């Protein structure tokens, strides 16, 4: 029993980066599905983290997310990624309606010295599962994105990566503004920790109080 756990619970920088970038891929898909950015018929169900997860079947979106997670994984391995933000915007006005903020704390000792840490896969998966559940249930409190009066207006999303100042950005990336929401409401979701990367999730959204008073 003891020897079994020893081999299984070692987590390396590389493994942690893979877990975290995979998490972003699934989280992005889940947000796009649950928030109705793309229609539900463009998603297919798979099993992941002990949950039914939805993955986009649209080639364009698929490619975008694949390219994204590949690059994130590279930065995670270098310990240069500080934050990933998925923003949902109005297509016509470019106004940011929702901002999913994933902050990442990296254990620098692991990056610098190449040591590994101990944490069981199972435990990490359980933590991620809790976040995925929260994302799926977020529709209960987040404001409705597809208001009928806005038929002409579509929701689009974008992903921002906050990296250390010294990273060499590939030519496919450009500098962006932070796309902040003024006076937002914020909800903090669960966090997960691979012992190398700690990911905190916060969703902020437009404060719609003025609308409610009408």
């Amino acid at each position, binding site marked *: 029993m003891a020897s079994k756990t020893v081999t299984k619970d070692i987590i390396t920088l590389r493994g942690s980066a893979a877990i975290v970038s995979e998490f972003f891929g699934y989280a992005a898909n889940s947000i796009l599905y649950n928030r109705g950015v793309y229609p539900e018929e463009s998603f297919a169900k798979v099993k992941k983290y002990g949950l039914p997860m939805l993955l986009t079947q649209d080639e364009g979106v698929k490619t975008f997310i694949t390219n994204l997670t590949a690059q994130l994984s590279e930065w995670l391995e270098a310990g240069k990624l500080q934050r990933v933000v998925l923003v949902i915007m109005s297509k016509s006005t470019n106004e940011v309606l929702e901002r999913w903020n994933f902050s990442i704390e990296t254990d620098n000792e692991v990056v610098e010295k190449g040591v590994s840490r101990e944490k069981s896969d199972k435990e990490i998966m359980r933590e991620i599962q809790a976040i995925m559940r929260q994302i799926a249930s977020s529709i209960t409190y987040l404001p409705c994105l597809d208001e009928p009066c806005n038929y002409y207006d579509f929701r689009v999303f974008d992903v921002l990566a906050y990296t250390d*100042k010294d990273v060499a950005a590939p030519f496919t990336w450009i500098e962006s503004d932070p796309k902040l929401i003024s006076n937002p409401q914020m909800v903090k979701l669960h966090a997960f920790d691979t012992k190398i990367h700690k990911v905190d999730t916060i969703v902020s959204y437009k404060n719609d109080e003025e609308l409610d008073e009408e």
Partner: protein
Amino acid sequence: MDPRNAFQEIALPRKNSKENLDRFIPNRSAMDFDYAHYMLTEGKKGKENPAASSPAKEAYLKQLREVFNMNRPRILAFKNKPPAPVEFMPPEYASVQQSKPVKPRRHIPQTSERTLDAPDLLDDYYLNLLDWGSSNVLAIALGTTVYLWDASNGSTSELVTVDDDKGPVTSVNWAPDGRHIAVGLNNAEVQLWDSTANRQLRTLKGGHRARVGSLAWNNHILTTGSMDGKIMNNDVRIRDHVVETYRGHQQEVCGLKWSASGQQLASGGNDNILHIWDRTQASSNSATQWLHRLEDHAAAVKALAWCPFQGNLLASGGGGGDRCIKFWNTHTGSCLNSVDTGSQVCSLLWSKNERELLSSHGFTQNQLTLWKYPSMVKMAELTGHTSRVLFMAQSPDGCTVASAAGDETLRFWNVFGTPEVAKPAPKAAPEPFAHVNRIR
């Protein structure tokens, strides 16, 4: 502790130094006298150094860093954005949400909005007898006479009737200013008229040796295409007006259109050839070489239309033996698509507001066909004309299309719909000082 270490600790925030500096613990074994001495003497110098300790300086540095974005992370995003979800909109959703006319469900009236008689309109495929100017006046040549029909008030006036030995009129074309109009004649002359003053400004002659059936303006350059197969650029401001000649067609030039940028000229001839000419390669003394010579059409190429939303996209339509609409990348000269319409293509118009193309046809339906671009799905077929629809012209606001056919009628169709933003309001109420710029 060695003094070097101690110095480092001062430079850093003093988080570990608490235990060393507490004088009130009377346990000397825990004290470091070397360090204490250092702190009392050398250490003080460090403290006096304002760069290290002054709170004002620190705040200043912090602000500096913020201004120059030094302590902020880089924020990066993909250059290529994820696709917008437009295409996925389920149609049933669209119909539920439909409060005003939505693009895919726009109502296209199947009948013409109004019909005017056009007696003596020449039923000649190779001519260009209809044009709608930017000042919302429609010009049509009927026999030897050019009539102007003001679309804003429906009034008709006669611009000119040419002598029988000069006429009939073989082409009309408004200059971009909507005021000057060029009139091509059967005797190879071209007349320039000022429509507001109803006055002839000059006659361009001596260039062509046969009738001038096609005209196209590019600023002060009037390009003329003739039955003699030649295309000439005429600078209307100067005495020797022929500045360039394009030789390439063996037969009558019946289609002539400048691209919106004014860089490329498309010409189609009765020799079934479509040429693309580059403005910058033109020269007056030597024969100008075409940029592309496109021989894909199997009949005369008269219908030409440059795409308003894609600079180097040209649509061309072939005559009775060809019946195809072809799309060209005029940059590379490659044919992007070809659609057999089943009927002679007499003219083509792009919608200014939507990605749609309108074509007018001859035998057997004499119809106007509206196509979705680039899928080339037929959106509507408008019938009404009883003979081939020779000419089409688009109103300045892009909503209405006028068509003139061999049945000697002129019909108006609301085929392109109104732009989403606003209806063309200024038509009815001209600006109070609109006439001021006409002083000169």
